């Protein structure tokens, strides 16, 4: 029996990312440590975040540490260190120092056996590289359930193509969940890197659209319940990613997935509104531009209604918003967002007497961001606001004064704006005299002038 154990031990010791099993089997930890430590030191020179591991899993003392002799708590503590190191080293897996350092963890701490899932997840963005097959080769014969689909690639020692990962994520929620949680956790602990985020986002995006396509083939009632299931699955992930304001790349990735989800799906307004609110809740100066693009597309897929209170407040804070919308409008449909925002601002004026949104409404109108029909509605809502705004919200009449000058300026505007303004008054049969009394200003002569 001892001979069998010894043979098994030798076989286990020969699992290596770098050396042939025959050579690995003969290596002692002293030799290995010096080779691997060199890799680790190189990593530290590249990135000081690695340095702290030099006193733990890469310390001289680690040469004599044997997992099987450690207590459960000690093992759990070790796992934490290893996981943290793996998240950090993920960005460097194409560099040989990283492979050398990992070799130490494999040989000394058997992370391929004890931390298999974590190790696979770390290597997954590099699934197309030979290093991935080398890893598959040394993994235990039974892979963790969520990665068992990689069995054929382990057996044949070939690299799984991207399509296989996408297919898996599309048809098996648990796989999507594994890569999402890995990515989110790396971002939470500030150990993210661009490759990881791009990898996650691209798989997630294709999987989400793939799932939507599958659902569309069912009956309407089935579709609705599928929609709910999908929302349940990806909603929490998107929600967290959208508001992770310390990780701009993740936010932008989440905008991308959200755009695909909302454009491709057939979602209720309430869901889209909630997503819009999350976009504005999390955006920062470095993500506000893509955030606005995302918001415009989301608004486009909602029925034409005013933006929510939260979104309105966030949009109000952006300086130069109408200029940004003009630029974005060259490639995307921004009208509905602009329209919903203007209507919300006018509503705010009526309800609270807050007139600080009027310059933005005027600027959106004068930059011709709105369609003619939308412009008509906004003009109408401005005139209605003049009628509805009362002393109880505007006791000094400041809001009405601001509104009056806005209306006067718009009625004088050249081109479409003035024309639509005059037409709206005519169509809706407003009593101009009454309006003028209310606003304490003269509109009529200017109106007539603008009509001629």
């Amino acid at each position, binding site marked *: 029996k001892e001979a069998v154990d010894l043979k098994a031990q030798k076989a286990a010791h020969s699992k290596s990312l770098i050396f042939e099993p025959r050579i690995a089997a003969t290596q002692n930890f002293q030799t290995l440590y010096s080779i691997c430590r060199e890799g680790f030191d190189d990593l530290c020179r590249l990135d000081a975040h690695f340095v702290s591991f030099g006193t733990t899993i890469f310390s001289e003392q680690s040469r004599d540490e044997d997992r099987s002799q450690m207590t459960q708590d000690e093992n759990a503590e070790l796992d934490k260190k290893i996981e943290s190191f793996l998240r950090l080293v993920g960005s460097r897996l194409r560099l040989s120092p990283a492979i050398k350092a990992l070799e130490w963890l494999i040989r000394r701490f058997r992370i391929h056996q004890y931390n298999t899932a974590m190790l696979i997840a770390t290597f997954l963005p590099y699934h197309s590289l030979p290093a991935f097959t080398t890893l598959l080769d040394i993994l235990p014969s039974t892979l963790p359930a969520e990665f068992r689909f990689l069995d054929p690639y382990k057996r044949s020692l070939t690299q799984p193509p*991207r399509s296989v990962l996408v297919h898996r994520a599309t048809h098996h929620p648990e796989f999507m969940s594994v890569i999402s949680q890995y990515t989110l956790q790396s971002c939470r602990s500030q150990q993210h890197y661009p490759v990881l985020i791009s990898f996650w986002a691209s798989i997630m*995006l294709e999987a989400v659209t793939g799932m939507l396509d599958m659902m569309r083939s069912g009956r309407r009632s089935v579709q609705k319940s599928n929609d709910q299931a999908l929302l349940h699955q990806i909603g929490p992930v998107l929600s967290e990613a959208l508001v992770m304001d310390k990780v701009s790349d993740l936010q*932008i990735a989440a905008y991308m997935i959200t755009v695909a989800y909302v454009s491709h799906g057939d979602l209720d307004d309430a869901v889209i509104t909630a997503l819009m609110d999350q976009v504005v809740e999390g955006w920062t100066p470095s993500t506000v531009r893509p955030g606005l693009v995302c918001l415009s597309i989301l608004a486009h897929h909602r029925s034409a209604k005013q933006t929510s209170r939260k979104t309105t407040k966030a949009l109000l804070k952006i300086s130069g918003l109408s200029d940004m919308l003009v630029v974005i409008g060259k490639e995307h449909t921004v009208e509905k967002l602009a329209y919903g925002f203007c209507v919300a601002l006018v509503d705010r004026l009526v309800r609270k007497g807050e007139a600080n949104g009027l310059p933005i409404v005027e600027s959106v109108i004068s930059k011709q961001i709105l369609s003619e029909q939308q412009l008509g509605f906004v003009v109408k809502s401005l005139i209605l606001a003049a009628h509805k705004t009362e002393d109880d919200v505007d006791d000094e009449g400041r809001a009405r004064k601001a509104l009056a000058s806005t209306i006067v300026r718009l009625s004088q505007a050249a081109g479409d704006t003035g024309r639509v303004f005059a037409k709206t008054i005519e169509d809706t049969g407003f009593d101009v005299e009454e309006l003028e009394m209310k606003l304490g200003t003269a509109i009529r002569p200017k109106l007539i002038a603008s009509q001629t």
Partner: protein
Amino acid sequence: ENDVEGDGVYPVVVAPQKLAELFNAAPAFAMPPIEDMFNQVTKLFSSKPATTITA
């Protein structure tokens, strides 16, 4: 509330191979910065439709 009428917005169908083409162009470690990807993807999903009926 002023709802604009004739609000015909339908889900955008992007052929799966278009997305796959975009992402298969390079492995994750050679992809362009995420904002470039974002621009490419949003263009696919929202390229201004020629027949917008959103008034």
